[in-house]
């Protein structure tokens, strides 16, 4: 134990020497957007927020400077904001919220993690809609905060002298799709597991902010199929990114097809609909039966062409989530970061290499009998969960007595 402790302390002492490497966690790697939206806050000032639920992702934006692995820290946020009249630009802000201790699954209006003042869109001369892909680099004054459910989003102002959508700002999002929908807009039919998600599977809500002050409670639009909203919002942090990915045969959501892209080598979607809730046994009885394949994608731009491995299990670590260098002292290199949150005692391990961009995608092709077993184990509102966690070896740091390993967070697919 003393050895463990001393190794951990040594890592803490020199941890600050490790180079910082900001990565997209990966939530928007496999995506089609559907609409631009204010999530129902059409003509009020509000923060439109995306829920990052610990049911789905754990330990995914850990602060590498925290030796206990119990705090989150985000460095930047990326999204797409649209202004209905380009030459009358509106203002917006950025916000992050913790979970309301008195109202689980809702953001806490009383003590936001951070909330910025208003910032401007760039100049435009057009009188028609304009859209901007925006990355906001947050200041160091946004401190690490205890991990758990988080909400991130954009504070939207209201236009002067008119109403949205005649003018005003909104944010781009993917929508899920009802089974009877005939719309031609890209939209994603989620698998049955989404029924067990909080708020009816609605991942987006709005927090009223009259005068720039969050008042709460947040409002979730109804979580009906066809009304669920996933904001196109990426988090950037000093972590190895890792997200669940699902390959489907949907023509209405082409990003989910197994067609590789520059950021997702084998294709598929990483959204919160099919990405987290695959349909592996055609639960929705689609005209073209679904038999989704499932997997996980790791991204670590500090580790191109490096060995990586993926653990797949059926639950969390039985001893709780602990820093990697505590559970496995051989990884106690100063640059090691991340927790072990997966059930490593039963996990199956896959090996691979990251590509030149530091990306490693591992898909699991399920046999027909495996799909039948999953179907027999899945109950209404109680899906069969698969846990993933990726690890990347950064050999660029040399091969001393300890290894530099970057652990992703844990992602959970609900089958």
């Amino acid at each position, binding site marked *: 134990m003393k050895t463990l402790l001393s190794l951990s302390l040594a890592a803490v002492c020199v941890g600050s020497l490790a180079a910082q490497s900001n990565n*997209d966690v990966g939530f928007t790697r496999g995506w089609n*957007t*559907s*609409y*631009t939206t204010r999530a129902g806050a*059409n003509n009020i000032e509000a923060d439109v927020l995306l829920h990052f639920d610990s049911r789905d992702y754990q330990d995914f934006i850990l602060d590498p400077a925290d030796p206990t692995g119990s705090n989150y820290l985000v*460095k930047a946020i*990326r999204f*797409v904001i649209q202004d*209905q009249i380009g*030459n*009358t630009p509106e203002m917006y802000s950025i916000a992050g919220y913790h979970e309301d201790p008195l109202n689980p699954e809702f953001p806490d209006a009383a003590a*936001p993690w*951070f*909330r*910025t*003042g*208003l*910032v*401007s*869109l*760039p*100049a435009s001369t057009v009188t*028609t809609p*304009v*859209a*901007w*892909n*925006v*990355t906001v*680099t*947050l200041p*160091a*004054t*946004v401190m690490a905060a205890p991990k758990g459910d988080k909400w991130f989003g954009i504070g939207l*102002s*209201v236009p*002067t*002298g008119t109403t949205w*959508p005649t*003018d005003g700002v909104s944010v*781009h999002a993917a929508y899920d799709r009802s089974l009877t929908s005939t719309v031609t*807009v890209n939209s994603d039919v989620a698998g049955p597991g989404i029924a067990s998600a909080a708020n009816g599977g609605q991942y987006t809500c709005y927090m009223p902010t009259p005068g720039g002050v969050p008042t709460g409670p947040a409002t979730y639009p109804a979580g009906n199929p066809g009304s669920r909203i996933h904001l196109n919002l990426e988090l*950037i942090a000093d972590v190895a990114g890792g997200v669940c990915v699902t390959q489907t045969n949907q023509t209405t959501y082409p990003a989910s097809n197994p067609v590789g892209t520059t*950021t997702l080598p084998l294709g598929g979607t990483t959204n919160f609909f099919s990405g987290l809730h695959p349909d592996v046994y055609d639960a929705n009885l689609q005209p073209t039966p679904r038999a989704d394949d499932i997997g996980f994608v790791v991204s670590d731009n*500090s580790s*191109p*062409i490096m*060995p990586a*491995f993926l653990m*797949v299990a059926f639950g969390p670590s039985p001893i709780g989530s602990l820093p990697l260098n505590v*559970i*496995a002292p051989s990884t106690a290199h100063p640059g090691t970061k991340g927790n*072990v949150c997966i059930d490593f*005692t*039963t*996990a*199956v391990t896959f090996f691979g290499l990251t590509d030149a961009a530091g990306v490693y995608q591992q898909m699991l092709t399920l046999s027909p009998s495996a799909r039948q077993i999953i179907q027999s184990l899945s109950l209404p509102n109680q899906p069969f969960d698969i846990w993933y966690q990726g690890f990347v*070896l950064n050999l660029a740091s040399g091969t001393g007595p300890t*290894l530099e390993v970057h652990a992703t967070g844990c992602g959970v697919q609900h089958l």
Partner: protein
Amino acid sequence: MTRSSSLLPGVVLLAAGVAAWLWWPRGDAPRLDDPAAPAPVAAHVPEAPAPAVGAVAPSQPVVERPAAPTAKVGVMKFPDGSKVAALNGVTADVDLVWNDRPYSPIKEKIVDRGWEWYVHEDGSHSTVRMVEVNGVLAPIGLVASPTETLPVLDELDEQLRQQLPQRR
């Protein structure tokens, strides 16, 4: 599927993987320690008054020529390793996280409604500015790149209602 009973086999495999890696013939791996030479640095412009809240009237951005830095300005660092003078009176150094597209060099500097921006060759705009965060002024970095617009769901619903009067 094969299962392991503890982390130990994984660590053993890991060590084997490392050994294999060291003997694995391969080409030159990309290096991350080769930043491009710093670009010319732009001038500091005194901070302009804060913009009004909400919509504002159309404006004509003022184009300014980048020039040599003064001693008191902060630095904006871009992903290609280039550095320029910070804008909007920011005195801190800010490493801008770029958008999910290749970095594009600076073309010019403009001032729009009191906000100084660098305009890049691909139409992206970048800036830093002191903005209140939890009530305290702090330097925020912004990169905005033009992208395609999307329809508004409410407008499409209305169109559908007009086409199909029986639809409620």
